């Protein structure tokens, strides 16, 4: 049984670069954290059993070479597939942010680990603009299997990616919807259907984040860990004094859910 403070294992490898601020956000939300290199986890998969949350943070794992998240995802499939399946089946939570989301998609965590890479139905690929873009967007939490995310909340968050366009057939989107897997959508400031740049990458259905059917695995392109202090918001100098950024709520929900597990 986890103690009151769940432990989050933050998995890094060559090119990961958001592990520190992600650890900070998780700790601010009440978790304890341990950053571990992929090579260590492969040597000691038992580390997974010490944690309630596994986080794949943002960055450019292996330089985004071949495709973003492809090589990291392939290495996890090769070396840790069974252990990851056991972790999730055992009630563990997984969060993938930005490059971490791309890794979860490659790894098949959102569709099910039994699906081979070549039969994946969901892709994260080049932005419509064909370039890396760093900007703030507005997100709306959906009513999804990830019930630890407060549905209906609309909040600001930055994106920073080149390959964040979610592509899937209408049938797949429909199936995702029915299984409650669409956890986050981009939205516009006035609530209408977002267009570029409010929809920063051209994602089908304005999807910004997906969860698995259990709701315990979540991947999202935006960076909630970059909106946790009072000074992260791009217009904080125009806003009344604040205690924290809106992104912290997501980590708090995750940590609380993991503590209940």
């Amino acid at each position, binding site marked *: 049984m986890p103690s009151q403070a769940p432990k989050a294992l933050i998995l890094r490898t060559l090119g990961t670069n958001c592990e520190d601020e992600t650890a900070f956000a998780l700790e601010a939300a009440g978790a304890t954290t341990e950053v571990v290199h992929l090579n260590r986890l492969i040597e000691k998969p038992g580390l997974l059993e010490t944690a309630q949350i596994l986080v794949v943070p943002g960055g450019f794992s292996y330089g985004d070479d071949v495709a973003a998240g492809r090589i990291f995802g392939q290495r996890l499939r090769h070396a840790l597939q069974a252990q990851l399946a056991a972790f999730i089946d055992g009630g563990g939570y997984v969060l993938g942010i930005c490059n971490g989301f791309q890794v979860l998609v490659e790894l098949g965590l959102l569709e099910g680990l039994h699906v081979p890479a070549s039969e994946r139905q969901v892709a994260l*690929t080049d932005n419509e603009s*064909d370039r890396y873009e760093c900007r703030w967007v507005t997100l709306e939490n959906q009513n999804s299997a990830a019930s630890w995310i407060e549905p209906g909340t609309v909040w600001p968050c930055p994106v920073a990616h080149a390959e964040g366009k979610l592509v899937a057939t209408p049938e797949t989107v429909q199936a995702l919807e029915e299984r409650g897997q669409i956890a986050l959508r981009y939205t516009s400031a006035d609530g209408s259907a977002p267009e570029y740049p409010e929809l920063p990458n051209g994602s089908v259905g304005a999807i910004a984040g997906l969860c698995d059917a259990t709701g315990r695995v979540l991947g999202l392109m935006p960076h909630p860990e970059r909106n946790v202090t009072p000074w992260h918001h791009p217009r904080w100098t125009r806003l009344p004094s604040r205690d924290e950024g809106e992104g912290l709520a997501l980590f708090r929900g995750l940590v609380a859910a993991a503590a209940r597990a």
Partner: protein
Amino acid sequence: MVSSRSDAEASAAVSAAPMALPRAWRIEVFRAPGQADPRGRAIEGLAAELQLEGRLEGVRFGRGFLLPPELSRAAVDEIVSNVLCDPVVDRARLTAPGDAPEVPGGVRRVLAAVMPGVMDPVARSLGRLLHRTGRADQDQIGRVQSFRAHELSGDLTDGDLRQLGQRLLANETIEELHFDEESLGYEQPGGEAQRGPVVVPLLELGDAELLELSRTGQLSLTLIEMRAVQAHYAALGREPLAAELETVAQTWSEHCKHKTLCGIIEVERPDGSKYTIDNLLKSTIAAATHELDRDFCLSVFVDNAGIVHFEGEWAVCFKVETHNHPSAIDPYGGAGTGIGGVIRDILGAGLGAKPIANTNAFFVGPTDLAADDVPKGSLHPRRVLRGVVAGVRDYGNRMGIPTVSGGVWFDKGYVGNPLVYAGTVGLIPASMAQKEVRPGDSIVALGGRTGRDGIHGATFSSIELSEHSETESSHAVQIGDPITEKGVLDVLLAARDAGLYRGVTDCGAGGFSSAVGEMAEGTGAEVWLERVPLKYPGLTSHEVWISEAQERMVLSVPPDKLEALLELCAAEDVEAVEIGRFNDSGRLVLKDGEETVGDMDLEFLHDGTPRPTRHARWTPPELPDPGCPAAADPSKAIVALLGAPNVASREWIIRQYDHEVQGGSVLKPLVGERSDAPGDGAIVQPLRHSRRGLSITCGANPLYGRLDPYAMALAGIDEALRNAVAVGADPDQAAILDNFSWGNCDRPEMLGALVLAAEACQDGALAYRTPFISGKDSLNNEYRVGDQVHSIPHTLLISCMAQVPDVARAVSMDAKQAGNVIYQVGATHPELGGSHWLQELGLDGGTVPRPDLETAPALLRALHAAAAAGKLRACHDLSEGGLGVAAAEMAFGGDLGLELDLTKLPLGELPSGYDPASVALFSESCTRFLVEVEPHACSAFEQHLDGHPVTRLGSVIEAQELRLNLPGGSPCAVPLADLRRSHQSGFQS
């Protein structure tokens, strides 16, 4: 999903195919039908700039891979469908070894592949993955290659194809292009390694032959220096070895030694009298720092970066580098390796700092330059700028370092010789600001492997460019590999905290020769070149020694820590090798196996540089004062200035940089209600447990330099500091850097301007009590076309990092609230020389803005006190375009109007020809701000600024317009939409 012609068809194609079809599995991955092809579409967009008259209809972009031929068909199929090809968006085309690919009918094909020996990070990552996941053997890792395939449709001529390939699809300096033919090289560079000592006979050479040797060997040594080398070896009674001569050339290069700034200069004053400067850098810029003796300075001018105390146990460091000549030839690779190099400076500062922010500044030719005006051998400024931006983006973003600020300056003077400045700020425990080397320590090379890339970069950067530079110096250009450097960063900081080494430096210009040579100064070293890991065989001993292959650091490791260090590196897949030992011999001995390939006296290497006397004088250009003409329509003039190339929005660049990573962003490069207004400076929060912030700002204005280099330098210092003060930083806790990019200082006029600028740096630093802590000069920024030599404008970049006592009191420049009061702080003088207003009118001459060193430092401190007390709601510095531009930016940034009465500005008695409205609007006098203050805070604010020039100009209004009451004219009003539109109307890509 995988399509391939049948084996029978394939073998039929072999006989008809050219011999150069690669003996490797070839995979080309294109977007599936119906899927968007953003890369192809982006190329179509760029092609609109070429003269294709609609003949290009479409572009499909494909990623190509070559895999070892001995893999089975089934194994390759598996790799394609699980690794190379996305099942949702891609389709792959597989071609058997030696076969020609099955190409769709009616398309023209352009293949681009890096030349042998050029870094191919995708291939490296893929090769390692295939090995790691049991799909390939260890020896097959290096036999994976990548390329790009483009399929173009339309009625294209061969000329069109060639133009598209050469201008958009590849850079032939480092890549090879194939037009409608399918051959691709599939072999690593190599050949027999010609290792061992190589004697270079020079004892018997005459002057002409010495110079010829310097030129053909790309040594870039002058005759006097060659003679000194000759004399040294004559005294030793032997000829030099190649590795020795190369080491001398690298160590004595302008790039490494700063011979001009550290040399002897005889200066002739305008009245004909003369004085002598022994070491300009030491006697001006560094002298000011030492005279100021500020206690926050921990390490200045001695290390890879300047280090100052930040808070508690922490210090911060800052370095800005230039990477001009490589960027002229390959903007993408040059800029990438430029940023990679300055990041390594920070990793090699003290015992190694963590990079926390990147900054950059580019000086390029005008983007609307006619194609005919691009000199032979040069790239169009648009291509330079796009490439440089992409290079900084791809390297900086991958390193996980936020690019928080930057600037671009356009001027015709940079067409043949663009300038690329890249800077990095680091965070380091204050106790780790110093490093040492002890005899007996291991010399450990950490990071990337060594190849033939980048040979002669240090000497190349010390000579002028010419139309032949592209071909002569292509081997001086490298492609960076940020992920290897990220691995270096990760293990280096872990090793630092574990105390596994006691000295570190980066392998920059000159490679090991400079890094080890510098570290061994004062001790001695023996290096074992045979241990250096190589990218491929075939390098000579001295090539291994001087290669500037990227992403390498050199450590000095105590013997009892060596094993732990090597284990740590291996655990994270970072290569580290002991390549020698430091000793107390005072000599630098190079071994390659059993043979000695170099044995040098370190004292000669470091102190043997001849110091000839250079001559300097400067004569101001004789230009009549053009005055300050009135604007026919001030509204239109303001709108026009907002769209001027040097003022217009940089959003298209800024959005491509990750300015948020590391989670420390406090003020972003773009601010305001719509995040579209240019902030005066960025602020980061380096420590999560502390609210102390760090601002990063800069100042530069090359338009001032030709008229008055002394004033230009002072104005640059003032601009960097006032930007810092504008965002809430404390000018009393600021440190600055100097980066000179200048023409050929063998010419007295050029050197005269440099001397004046350096003297201004000294005077400015003393007056503001702001120390320079580091700097770099890049001289010989000239470009030769035929007989004509073109010099760049004198360009001095001043970079500043300053502390913000409490990030909660940071100030942004956008107007906040209707009803608040707007003040101008600082005095407006008739200073229009080099101003944007005169440039807009096509006028030259006039008085260049020059800060008043008596009053400016106190004004900055008073304004900061008001900011620290929370009295400022917004603050914007006045710079290019003067008050007119600043007020407009402040207004549209806040989505609020401003109503300002400029008749209240005390302009004094203006000289004839100076229109008071234009002076009020467009003068670029230094040390001025527009400040927004809440009505209840006005008296407190005015008390803070007591004794300084402060004018209450008006207020923030709800109406969406900029309303101005001008002296001697009628009131004008400009809608915010017009201001915003013009600001967004500049070049975008």
